[in-house]
């Protein structure tokens, strides 16, 4: 939706533009990419963009798992959702960079960590092709039509707040760009699962139980704080944790495994004695 809105804003500014997503999983939290192409003349090319002039990164942690800045040249630019200043940020290519804490902005304006419109505000500051006014017009148009005037207003506000909070500079290019992990086994390397003994399967990179290597804790925007004194050991949190990250100890007290906690807050909601408290932000205790 952000890519489409950006294209619409460019069109409002008298440019030609197109926008399209990369087809993949449509699940909340799954990495997605979308493209916008802007030109002064009619655009006939229809391919995906491989050498972008600008990369907009909605989640900083993607830098660890996906080659998001692939194809970006040193004369390009980047807009990143992070709390860091541009000079502290290393994205793998040294380019003109703008950073904004879009997550905080979105939570303030929308009461939800949905950062796309806030990021568009930041884009307006860096990209000469679109003005903030046109971005806000496009947001009001697109979001107003789909979600109603109240949502449009909140999203326009998010863009404004992000525009005001954007810091510009140049980011570092020291880290190496991660390449997407490809696993292409030969036929005899494929584990059959059924043939493995239960005691041998722990810690294997593929096959049964191997999802423990996916650290889903990076999804979290709020963290559960556990108060051992208040706990009555009813184990409701252990039962209802969807991410199996509440570990049951010998004495039926619990311990949160923050490497996997996605911060849904069910544990705090089901706790009958308020022994678990959801604290905003990514913390560990």
């Amino acid at each position: 939706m952000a890519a489409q809105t950006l294209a619409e804003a460019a069109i409002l500014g008298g440019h030609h533009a197109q926008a399209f997503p990369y087809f993949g999983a449509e699940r909340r939290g799954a990495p997605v990419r979308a493209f916008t192409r802007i030109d002064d003349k009619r655009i006939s090319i229809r391919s995906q963009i491989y050498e972008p002039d600008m990369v907009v990164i909605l989640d900083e942690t993607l830098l660890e798992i996906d080659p998001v800045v692939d194809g970006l040249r040193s004369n390009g630019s980047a807009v990143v959702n992070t709390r860091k200043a541009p000079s502290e940020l290393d994205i793998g290519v040294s380019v003109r960079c703008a950073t904004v804490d879009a997550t905080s902005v979105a939570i303030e304006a929308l009461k939800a960590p949905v950062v796309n419109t806030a990021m568009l505000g930041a884009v307006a500051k860096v990209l000469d092709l679109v003005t903030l006014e046109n971005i806000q017009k496009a947001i009001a148009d697109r979001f107003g039509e789909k979600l109603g005037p109240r949502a449009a207003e909140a999203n326009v506000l998010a863009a404004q707040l992000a525009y005001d909070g954007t810091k510009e500079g140049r980011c570092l290019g020291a880290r190496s760009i991660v390449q997407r992990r490809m696993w292409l086994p030969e036929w005899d390397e494929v584990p059959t699962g059924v043939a493995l003994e239960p005691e041998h399967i722990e810690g294997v990179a593929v096959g049964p139980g191997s999802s423990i290597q996916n650290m889903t804790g990076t999804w979290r925007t709020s963290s559960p704080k556990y108060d051992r004194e208040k706990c009555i050991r009813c184990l409701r949190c252990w039962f209802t944790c969807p991410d199996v990250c509440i570990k049951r100890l010998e004495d039926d007290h619990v311990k949160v495994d923050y490497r996997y906690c996605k911060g849904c807050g069910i544990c705090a909601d089901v706790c009958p004695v308020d022994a678990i408290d959801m604290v905003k932000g990514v913390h560990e205790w």
Partner: protein
Amino acid sequence: MTADEISTIKEMPNNDYFVSGHGACPGCGVAIAVNNIMRILGSDTTVYVPASCLIVFSALYPTSAFRTPLLFTAFENTGAVITGIKAAQRRRGIEGTVVGIAGDGGTFDIGLQALSGAAERQEDVLYICVDNEAYMNTGIQRSGSTPFGAWTTTTPVGKVTQGKRQMKKDVMDLVIAHDPEYAATLSIAHYNDFIRKVEKAKHKSGFRFLHVLTPCVPGWRTEASKSVEIAKLAVETGMWTLFEYEEGEARSTYKPHTMRPVTEYLHMQGRFRHMDNDDLNTLQRWLCAKWYYHYGHDVEQPACAIYNGEKELHFDGDPLHGV
């Protein structure tokens, strides 16, 4: 029931056969249900999952969140595949539970013929339907399980039509018509009831069917932390009834003291935000009939509350609710 069967959270084994690192949305009801089902079923279990959210988030290539064997083929054949796995195990002398965990699309619509076949043959398998009331994995399309009035991308809200116009299919009645060994409905918010029923299903042999209501955060437009509370309200309002079927008889296992008005359940979910008074009354009347069907016309029966337009359904909070 023998003494060593588990019936409370405390008695549950502290061994996870469904592990962390899967890619479910925060607050996923399916993950809660599957996690606890696997804890109870234990290590001697073979899991089959057809196309569904569950296979997508628990088997992120090349990993698996199940510490047991996990199989996957096409969408429509859960009943047939688990039959085949059980037959192969019988032939090879392997003891254990064969469980097929399908979504509502894979049970109510696409997988109904294979389910019916397996139930009719009285195969010795456990079939579990994790019901999130639409095809959530592909982006929220209506299924036979979607309740009346709910918004989905294929039952949009506009001037001509407002959400789904049909009632939810009663798949439990369809399964019970096959006279299975055991069939039960489960709720992730009624812990001991949940545990007792899974344990019962584990120890019986013959065709067993469990139906779990699993709230879906993005599809129902709810807050992630409220999944369990919503599941609880579903039971309190009659949108979900807890009962079990064995030896030819259906018996309710939990009866709410009073029937709460359905608006309490609906107002927590963005997918019902648009519903007007007529629709609410239609749904409430249908619920009353369902309530009497399951709990009977006792004298102490609370009168069925008919919605009179006092309460606004409007959800105030996340502007993305009810997209």
